[in-house]
C-alpha cells in the first residue's frame, strides 16, 4: 500500500488526499440526503399509511393533488409568502445595511440589535408576536393602534390579515442575517469608486443605482436565493401563531410545509405527503436555478 502511494506523482497525491477528505461529507450526504430523497420519491407512488405495507398506486397521489382545493390554497399561500416576503425583507435589509454602514456611533450595538432576532428561537418569538397581536389590553400592537386613535385590527383572526401577520416576524427574524451579508457586500466595494463618482458629480441616487447595486450583484444573488428558499419553507411561525398549529383561519396562513406535516403526521397519509414534498422540492429547485441564471447572466 505504502509502496503504491509512493509511486504516485505530486498531482496524484494531492488528488488522493482531496478525495479522502471529501469522501466523509459525500458519504454522509449520500446516506442522509440522497437516499431519503430517492426513497421519498418512491413512497410518493404508494399509499403507505405507517400501519399497513404501502402498495403501488402509480400517479394517484399526484392526480389527487390537482383536484385538492386545500393543496392549491396552500400552494398559493406559499407563493404569497415568497412574493411579498422577498421584496419587503430585501428592501428593508438593504436600507438598514446602507445606512448602518455609514453610521459610526454605536455601530456594533445597533448591528447586534438587528442580529439578535436571528439567534433567538423562532418558537419563542412566534409566541411573543402572537401575544402582541391580541386585542387591546393584552396585545401591545393593538394597544399602540388604539392609543394613537386607530381602530384595532383582528390580525391573526382575519383570513385577510393573518398571512401578513405571520410573515412579519419571519421577516424580522431573518433581517439581521441579511443586513450582515449586505454590509459585507457594501464594504467590499472600493471607496475610490464612490470618490470618483463624487468628483464627477454623480448624485446619491444615481450612485446607488448605477454603481452600488450592480457591484452588489453577487451578494444580491446569494441573499435572494437563501431568502427565497427560507420563505418557501416557512413553518415555525405558522405552526406556533395559529390555533392548534393548523395554519388557519380557513387555511389562510397554511404553507406547503405545514400541509405536508399535517398530511403525514395527522392523517398518516405518507404517500400523499411525500408526493407534495416532491412538488416542493421541484419548485425550490426550479426557482433557485432561475434566480441563479437571471442574476448571473449579463
Amino acid at each position: 500500500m505504502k509502496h503504491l502511494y509512493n509511486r504516485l506523482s505530486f498531482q496524484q497525491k494531492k488528488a488522493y488526499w482531496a478525495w479522502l477528505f471529501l469522501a466523509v461529507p459525500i458519504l454522509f450526504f449520500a446516506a442522509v440526503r440522497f437516499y431519503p430523497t430517492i426513497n421519498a420519491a418512491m413512497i410518493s407512488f404508494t399509499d403507505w399509511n405507517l400501519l399497513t405495507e404501502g402498495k403501488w398506486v402509480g400517479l394517484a397521489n399526484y392526480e389527487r393533488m390537482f383536484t385538492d382545493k386545500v393543496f392549491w390554497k396552500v400552494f398559493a399561500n406559499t407563493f404569497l409568502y415568497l412574493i411579498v416576503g422577498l421584496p419587503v425583507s430585501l428592501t428593508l435589509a438593504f436600507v438598514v445595511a446602507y445606512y448602518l454602514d455609514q453610521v459610526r456611533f454605536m455601530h456594533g450595538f445597533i448591528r447586534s440589535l438587528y442580529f439578535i432576532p436571528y439567534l433567538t428561537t423562532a418558537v419563542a418569538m412566534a409566541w411573543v408576536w402572537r401575544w402582541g397581536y391580541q386585542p387591546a389590553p393584552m396585545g401591545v400592537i393593538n394597544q399602540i393602534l388604539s392609543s394613537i386613535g386607530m381602530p384595532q385590527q383582528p390580525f391573526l383572526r382575519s383570513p385577510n390579515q393573518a398571512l401578513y401577520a405571520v410573515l412579519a416576524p419571519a421577516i424580522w427574524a431573518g433581517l439581521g442575517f441579511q443586513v450582515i451579508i449586505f454590509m459585507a457586500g457594501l464594504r467590499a466595494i472600493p471607496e475610490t469608486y464612490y470618490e470618483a463618482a463624487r468628483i464627477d458629480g454623480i448624485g446619491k441616487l444615481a450612485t446607488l443605482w448605477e454603481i452600488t447595486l450592480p457591484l452588489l450583484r453577487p451578494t444580491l444573488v446569494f441573499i435572494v436565493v437563501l431568502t427565497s428558499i427560507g420563505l418557501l419553507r416557512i413553518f415555525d411561525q405558522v405552526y406556533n401563531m395559529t390555533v392548534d398549529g393548523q395554519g388557519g383561519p380557513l387555511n389562510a396562513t397554511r404553507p406547503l410545509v405545514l400541509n405536508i406535516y399535517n398530511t403525514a403526521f395527522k392523517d398518516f397519509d405518507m404517500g400523499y405527503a411525500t408526493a407534495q414534498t416532491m412538488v416542493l422540492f421541484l419548485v425550490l429547485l426550479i426557482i433557485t436555478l432561475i434566480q441563479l441564471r437571471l442574476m448571473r447572466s449579463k
Partner: protein
Amino acid sequence: MATVTIRNLVKRYREAEVLHGINLDIADGEFVVLVGPSGCGKSTTLRMIAGLEDISGGEVLIGDRVVNQLEPKERNIAMVFQNYAIYPHMTIYKNISFGLRTARLPAAEKDRRIRAVAEQLELTPYLDRKPGQLSGGQRQRVAIGRAIIRDPAVFLFDEPLSNLDAQLRAQTRLEIKKLHQRLGSTIIFVTHDQVEAMTLADRIVIMRDGHIQQIGTPTEVYDHPANTFVARFIGSPSMNLLPGAVTADGGLALDGNGPIAHPAARGLAPGSRVLLGVRADDLRVQSHTGATDKAPGLQLSGRVSVVEPLGPDMLVYLDAGLDAGTQQVIAKADTRQTLRPGDEVTLTAAPETLHLFDEQSGKAVAV
C-alpha cells in the same frame, strides 16, 4: 485652467495632526509633483484639494475662489486614482461618459467628445469592452479619459503609475507629459518615486512628515538641496554624506581625513560639525592609491567592496577609511575602468560639486 493656492493647510485626524500648515502656490498650467516617503501626507494634501477630505485648517483656493466648503464637483477638478477607479460593470464608453454625466450638453455632442477622447488615447477599439478585458495601462488610459473629457481647471493624479510595470510606467509617464503639453492645464501629481517627479515636474514639492522640505524645479532641488533629507531623497544613488568639522582656518576636515577648502565653511564657527555631501556622479575614481597632486576639493582613499555595472557606467561601493571606522561611499565610474572588489582607489571631487550641511539641523549651509 486655473491657479491653485494653498495657505497654512492643516489636517487633523482626531488628535493626530498629519499636515502642519503647508503653503504652496501653483501657477496656471504648471505641472507640480508632490513627492515624499510613504505617509508624509501627499495623498492627504491632494484629497483636500479635491474636496474628498475635510480641511482642518487653512485655505485652498482654485483660481481666486476659496473652495474649502465646496463639493468636489463644484471645484472643477478631475482626479485619477492609483487603482484607476473605473467601473468594472460598465463598458469603456460608459466609463468615459461618466465624466460628462452632469455636463449640460446635447447627446450628440457628448458622443462626439467621448469618441474624440477615445481616439486621442487610442482606446477606440475597446469602447465596447469591459475594463476586465483591458490591460493595466489601457485601464489607466480610460481613467485619464474620464478625467480629460471634462476639461477641468485642475488635474489631480494620485500615484497613477504605481500599478504598472517598469516599461509601461515609463511609457505612460511620457504620455502624461505630452498630455500636459497639449492641454496646458494645471496638474498636481503625487508620487513617491523621485525619478517620476524629476522627469515630469515643472516644480517639485518634497514633503516629509506633513511638512514641505523644499519647493523648486528639478534642477534646483537636485543641485541645491535645502537639507540632507532632500539631498538623500532626490537623485539615485543617494548623495554621499560624510561627517566632518570646520577647522580653525576656515577650512574643512572630514573625520580621519585631511583638510579641504570649501567656501561655505568660512561662514561657520571653527569646530562646527557638518556633513559634506557629494553625489556619486561627481566623484572620480582613480585606481591607484597614495596622494595624487594636491588638487583642491575632496580627496578620499578607499577600498572597492562591490561593483554594480549599469551598462554605460557602473556603481562602485567603497569603504572609505574615515575616522569612525569605515564609511560606505558610492561613486559612479566608467565601465572602461577595471575595478575589482579589494582594489585600493582614490576618490576625488571638484570643490564646486560639494554640498555642505549643518550636522545638527541638516540644513544646507549657503555659500
